[in-house]
């Protein structure tokens, strides 16, 4: 035990003497969560739109004002004829044009139906879709408002309740994902490099010749990073809570427990990577290139998993961050207990166990 402690202390010295890495280790999550918490959003804000009003009458004016009164849209161009449509899209500044048909008010009042046409620049299909739906929703609201005072027969009212995130803030959605990505990459990178480094510099020989058992060597490598990553996670959690006001509805103990499991997971993965590579360079490339984009794209962090084609949905099951994000969202935003998220926790433990078993079996006590 005393020997083991000495080993852990050695690792701590390694880390704490490298001021730059330490600075990045703690500065990075803070900088990133601040930046992304504010900047990464799928909420539409101030999208530039053009309006072609062929009617210029009462209702077209009201609806126009209603659309522009929201934070979503900004009038970039008032068009005057259909021939201008094409040109307004080409320079890329206008994302969407709304066309009001001639005699808009007259059609609405006499025939009961008036038409608007919504044309979107679909080079970015995701944005185009969202914008179109926003305009559709505003128009729909307007229609509802128009008919409110009419006392129509057989009126069905729909009461809507937005659960868990009543203000529809996108930061609620992104904070758990950011925690996952930061922890996944930092932890995997740190451990994979630290063992590969001993190999590359030749000091592994010294460690292996010591009376320490292999699992002790590995454990001593992991403990300091476990503590560091945990501190990182806490920093992010505090920032999320106090800067972005993401609530923690569920039990803090459970949240911390889930985080610990998830931190151990990439650490174990890092060890696994380091047992199969010889140089730091390869270790890093595998842990960075192999993990970065798949974790960002397939974990459900930005893009909903249920939209993906079947093979990708299948692949997303082996992305540990996916399970972590679901569990953290449930605990933080829904206040769920272990009963609800036991499946996610069990899967994460399974991954952890798998990585540990494989890396212990792969760990070679002899250098070639």
């Amino acid at each position, binding site marked *: 035990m005393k020997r083991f402690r000495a080993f852990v202390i050695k690792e701590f010295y390694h880390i704490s003497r490298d001021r730059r890495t330490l600075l990045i280790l703690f500065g990075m999550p803070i900088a990133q969560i601040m930046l992304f918490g504010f900047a990464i959003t*799928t909420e539409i804000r101030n999208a530039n739109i053009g309006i072609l009003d062929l009617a210029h009458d009462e209702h077209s004016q009201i609806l126009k004002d209603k659309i522009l009164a929201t934070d979503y849209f900004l009038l970039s161009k008032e068009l005057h004829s259909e021939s201008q449509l094409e040109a307004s899209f080409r320079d890329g500044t206008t994302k969407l044009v709304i066309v009001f048909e001639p005699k808009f008010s007259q059609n609405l009042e006499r025939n009961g139906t008036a038409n608007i046409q919504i044309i979107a620049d679909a080079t970015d299909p995701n944005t185009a879709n969202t914008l179109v739906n926003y305009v559709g929703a505003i128009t729909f609201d307007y229609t509802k408002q128009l008919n409110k005072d009419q006392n129509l*027969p057989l009126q069905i009212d729909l009461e809507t309740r937005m659960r868990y995130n009543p203000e529809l803030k996108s930061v609620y959605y992104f904070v758990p994902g950011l925690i996952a990505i930061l922890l996944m990459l930092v932890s995997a990178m740190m451990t994979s490099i630290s063992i590969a480094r001993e190999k590359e510099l030749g000091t592994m020989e010294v460690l292996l010749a010591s009376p320490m058992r292999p699992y002790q060597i590995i454990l001593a490598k992991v403990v300091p990073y476990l503590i560091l990553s945990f501190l990182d996670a806490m920093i992010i959690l505090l920032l999320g809570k106090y800067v972005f006001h993401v609530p923690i509805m569920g039990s803090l103990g459970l949240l911390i427990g889930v985080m610990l499991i998830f931190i151990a997971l990439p650490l174990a993965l890092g060890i696994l990577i380091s047992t199969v590579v010889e140089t730091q360079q390869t270790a890093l490339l595998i842990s960075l290139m192999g993990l970065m984009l798949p974790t960002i794209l397939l974990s459900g962090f930005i893009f909903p998993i249920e939209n993906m084609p079947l093979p990708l949905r299948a692949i997303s099951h082996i992305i540990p961050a996916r399970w972590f994000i679901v569990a953290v969202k449930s605990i933080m935003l829904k206040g769920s207990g272990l009963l609800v998220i036991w499946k996610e926790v069990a899967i994460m433990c399974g991954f952890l166990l798998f990585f540990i078993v494989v890396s212990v079996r792969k760990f070679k006590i002899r250098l070639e």
Partner: protein
Amino acid sequence: MRTIAFLMRKEFLQIIRNKAILPVIFLMPIIQLLILSFAADFEIRNLKLYWIDQDKSTSSDLLRQKLVGSGYFVLSGMGNNAMDGDAQLEDGTTDLVIVIPAHFERDLIRENSNSAQLIVNAIDGTKAGLGNYYVSQVVGEWNQEIREKFESRLGTSPSRPQIVQPTYSFWFNPALNYKTFMVPGILVLLITMIGAFIAAMNVVREKELGTIEQINVTPIKKYQFILGKLTPLWIIGLIEFTLGLIVAKLVFSIPILGSIFLLYLFAGVYMVMVLGMGMLISTMTDTQQQAMFIAWFFLVIFILMSGLFTPIENMPDWAQKITLVNPIRYFIEVVRMVMLKGATFSDISHQMIVISAYAVAINGLAVWRYKKVN
């Protein structure tokens, strides 16, 4: 010149002899391009709907059929009790819960109005907003339908609701094929990552292993050293880019409307910039670990703020200003403009100037920072 050629040969040999790193450089990015391009779909459909019907009348049945038939929703289950809905929302088996109260049909006819309840899991705000909109739309349409039927049956004069009817058209990409949009972007990310990581580790590795001393005592000049290091990586980067373009063309049938020469011209300058960035990091750090962390720090910021995943226009003003110094943003813009819209040199001259200036500044800095004497 011969000195540089020797250095280049050494670098090439080092890369080719490393059996572990070759697949990472060439295979991994291509596999990721193939797989990940399918992932980035924001279009929201098949929302899971849980149906709680406490009325069990013809009307509530019809409404359910109407909702399911609309194509926006998939029925995830049915229940009788409002508590069921809560449980379903909590464990994520459903996105929306609709509660039809008892006497739904009776109230509609007797009292002329009734109400149903919609509960939405709003953690993903955008999705929740859309779900709400889709449900109200379908309910509204159905409401109008039964109203007309009812009135014609009673023979009362039809009421006249006023409806603004929107029609939609999607220009330039009517099928809303998001792969056209994503593939060029992901390709840019991959070659940027490979270039920056390899370059960032290159010099610092020689430092860490001590082999840099052997080079420092030779008469090799600073610029020769940097050039000899960068050229092989530059060639690898462009080969990678070519492989990516082939995949984009053959697998995803992404059109290349503009000049392919223009694309390579920009990619060439861009690679010089990316490699210079890696090299600069390399000269400023002592260990590969440090170099990696710094490279990673900037790349994650550049990637997530490139406008590829979330539009730049949605960001607050200060964040939009930050994206002006983001090289990835420019390359993605150029690749899309040239490939999808057939842009010419004058269209991308602004991006070209920015990236060229970047490349000169960063490489100048890297050569200046590299010291032969510690």
